[in-house]
């Protein structure tokens, strides 16, 4: 399959994520949208990795070009997991104090 399809898919997922972050009011949903953005990037990285590897294989049979993008994906997963653990803790802390996870409540600092 041509690489463009992967790019379009990843960009679509990424855009859905961005739109979700900007429009939704529920902290958990915003959080899910951020995760969607990260996973769109994962998909794109894997696709690019395969593409560059495929190009390099033409000239060199044992080429390892592009493998590092797949490693990068693992790092993104690890960091995303760390972020989830911190983020959910913050949301729980917030819920205990306000009994709500609506980000519209977050306007105390404005005044």
């Amino acid at each position: 399959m041509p690489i463009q399809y992967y790019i379009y898919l990843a960009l679509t997922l990424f855009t859905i994520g961005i739109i979700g972050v900007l429009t939704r009011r529920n902290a958990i949903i915003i959080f899910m949208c951020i995760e969607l953005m990260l996973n769109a990037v994962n998909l794109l990285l894997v696709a690019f990795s395969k593409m560059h590897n495929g190009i390099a294989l033409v000239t060199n049979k044992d080429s390892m070009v592009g493998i590092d993008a797949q490693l990068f994906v693992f790092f993104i997963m690890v960091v995303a997991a760390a972020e989830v653990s911190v983020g959910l803790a913050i949301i729980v802390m917030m819920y205990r104090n306000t009994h709500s996870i609506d980000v519209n409540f977050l306007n105390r600092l404005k005044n």
Partner: protein
Amino acid sequence: MNAIILSALAGVVMMLSGIFTNKQSVIKLVSIIALLVLITGNVLQTYGHCSIQIDTKNLLAFSKAGLYFNTLIFISTFVYFILSGKAIEKAGVNVAEYFALIFFVLCGVSILTSFNGLLMFFLGIEILSIPLYILTGSDKRNLKSNEASLKYFLMGSFSTGLMLMGIALVFGATGNFSLNATGQKTAYDVLNAGILAPVGLLFIFISMLFKVSAAPFHFWTPDVYDGAPSVFTSFMSTIVKAAGFYAFIHLFETKSYDLGPSWKLLLTFAIVLTLLVGNITAIFQHSVKRMLAYSSISQAGFMLFSLYSSNTLAKEGIFIYTVAYSFATIGVFAILIYLKDYTFDGYNGLAKTQPVLAFTNTVFLLSLAGIPLTAGFFGKYFMLASAVKAGAPLMLVIVAVLFAAISVYYYFKVIQAMYFKQGDAELNDNVPTSFKTALIAIAIVIILIGIFPSTVLNWLYF
């Protein structure tokens, strides 16, 4: 390598020390010792005595400038521990954890000063920011702190998402993550690779503007800096921001030419907007803490000049600016924490009751405003001089000088309140003599750097 490993180890040690002892003074002592070990290890590596040798497969590249920047950051942290250690103890119950998180941030800083590829750049930024989300929310019962923490977290991870998309696109264009691999331009017909790298760099640029709180992506800054416990605000707005700038410069030094002529245009836009928003909004604040948050945005505008010029003068400038800005802001915050009332009126008549605090605070504020004979003057001078040298339009430099003049107004409002207004500034606590001595020492250092800026810079080449 020393700094990265030792700071991570120090973090673990601090976490464990919380199990063995509840005495806060002991925990503080352990943290200061760990920091001194860290500084020693880093200085040793700067002069070639690296005790831990690891083959990083070209992911990290240690340069003298980066290691020296580490040292400056660690020394600023040392100053921070000395001045605000007491306030950290009071910030909550889990003192050991706060110190541990600060050490993890320092680990992120040491990665950011030595990354040689986008992978380590990403990891450094994340190791730097994740502990900060927790520190921001460390005051668990305080709704403002909760709110600031959630806001910072959501904004932070959103900008991480943008950064990752940028990195993926840059990878698509070049086929590897290395900093100086500028495109074995894949002659791949179906893919117009010419557009991937600029768009990717634009994404990374935006997310870095987020991280260093430059306009137009600064809107989270005042809320987060205001809501976080004051001690941690002082840490975030100085040490972390300076490290962010170093990484920003390090990355775009080699990468910016992919963006072509639009790079300078983008930066000019960001600089002018940052200076405008930071300075103009700071004028209208009633709370000194919020004013400092906006002033940190405007200082970011000046630091962006080093990105604009990216020559040796700019590199020297960012070192001076880091020291000047960090020391002064840490000092101002250390005094602010002692006050009951954070508004400008809270400072009324401080000079009568606490002359030492008022005097040192004046020195710090003068340095932030960039008055000659203080370190802050040379920070701003180097930034603007480097921009002129790099052929910036003169109008840009004039605008920056004008905004620096505007900033004098809101810094002097605090000085005016301390010296010329009636009232009795209420303090939370008795001010110990050791604290006053430390404040005077820092003020003297700031003035000395303002007279002999080369004392900081000579180490870069020595």
